[in-house]
């Protein structure tokens, strides 16, 4: 492939990463890293660095719209970002030290795990709305994490409470670690964690995850940049492609039905998990 062909293909992939990423509350890195390493033959650490840049673009583009539309829980995001940024820095430092084969295998395993978690559960936005009567966790009260969001689909305001802040914090640290290590947004860990563990409604979880992903990726992106791992031409095409894709993706989410969002998410992760497993098996000869 000529360098120009590589760039155009990458821009196209980034467009779909931005589209899917913003729609599903993930950074799109789960598409971009395999695409760059396998199709475009980019070195995996450079692919991770470039993907992180794409993740920031997805997050900033999509998150801005969700924040404006009051889907994002800004306090919850701030609280969990403490964990994700620490995780992300650690992850990036680990990635710089370990051999490439470790990154391939971890990538496969993490995504498979995420697919399995997501397929198991089915819950809709309304079931996750406010339940009164129970005692609030003290930390939730102290941080006033409970919130409301406006659902365009139902034309209704949903009040919800947040559960298990400690567990959510721990999972977020892990999500940040994988983000910095593998160049993904970590949304596929954070969205289920917020929805299932912390009982945040799906749409608010997607929006909040998307919001956090940008800061998380920024915390590791510069570490890769300072090591000369960011290829500015590749990164530029990714940003431009993602920018176009997120503009479309966010329009889709605001109108989407919660059950559909969840369904697309589960199908997508399952397919990805299978693909990654197949690749992980073939990799021992390649790397």
């Amino acid at each position, binding site marked *: 492939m000529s360098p120009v062909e590589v760039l155009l293909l990458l821009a196209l992939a980034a467009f779909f990463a931005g589209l899917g990423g913003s729609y599903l509350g993930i950074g799109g890195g789960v598409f971009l890293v395999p695409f760059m390493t396998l199709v475009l033959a980019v070195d995996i650490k450079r692919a991770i660095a470039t993907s992180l*840049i794409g993740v920031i*673009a997805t997050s900033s583009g999509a998150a801005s719209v969700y924040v404006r539309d009051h889907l994002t829980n*800004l306090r919850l995001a*701030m609280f969990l970002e*403490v964990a994700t*940024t620490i995780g992300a820095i650690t992850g990036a430092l680990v990635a710089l030290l370990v051999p490439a084969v470790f990154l391939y295998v971890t990538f496969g395993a993490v995504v498979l795990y995420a697919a399995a978690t997501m397929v198991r559960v089915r819950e809709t936005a309304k079931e996750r709305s406010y339940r009164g009567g129970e005692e609030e966790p003290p930390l939730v009260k102290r941080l006033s994490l409970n919130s409301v969001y406006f659902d365009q689909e139902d034309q209704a305001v949903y009040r919800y409470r947040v559960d298990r802040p400690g567990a959510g914090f721990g999972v977020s640290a892990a999500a940040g670690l994988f983000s910095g290590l593998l160049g993904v947004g970590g949304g596929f860990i954070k969205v289920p964690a917020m929805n299932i563990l912390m009982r945040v409604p799906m749409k608010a979880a997607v929006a909040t995850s998307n919001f956090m992903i940008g800061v998380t990726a920024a*915390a590791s992106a510069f570490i890769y940049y300072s090591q000369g791992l960011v290829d*500015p031409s*590749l990164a530029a095409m990714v940003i431009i492609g993602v920018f176009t894709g997120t503009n479309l993706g966010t329009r889709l989410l605001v109108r989407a039905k919660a059950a559909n969002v969840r369904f697309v998410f589960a199908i997508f992760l399952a397919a990805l998990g299978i693909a990654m497993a197949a690749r992980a098996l073939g990799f021992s000869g390649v790397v």
Partner: protein
Amino acid sequence: MIAARAGIRLVQDRIAALRRAVVGEVEDTNRLIYHVLRGGVLVSVAVLLFGFILVGAKSAALPDHSVPPRSLIPQLVQFTPAGFLSLGVLVLIATPMVRVLLSLLSFAEDGDRTYVLMTGIVLVNLLISVFLLA
């Protein structure tokens, strides 16, 4: 028929009012964050497109190595494609960082100590990432 329509209208008004009430409190911060994130991406894309125009105009090769922040300004003065493409990437990386800084100021304005502390930790983490290996 008319009564039904009026009823629906009443419900819609109620929802709109409720939405305004919810939205009113947080409108300023949310708007600001929206503009920062959106603006950062737009500036980044504009700078990158200019970088690609320079590649074409100078018939230069596509750069495959980013410019270290230290030597960025000389590169920009000379209008090198690598300089502008790197700048675009750096603007994008800086965008969420600026957002966190604004969140910090907004929490400080509200006198919300707990969240000033938390946002401060996030900001310190981001600064660590910038200076750790630079």
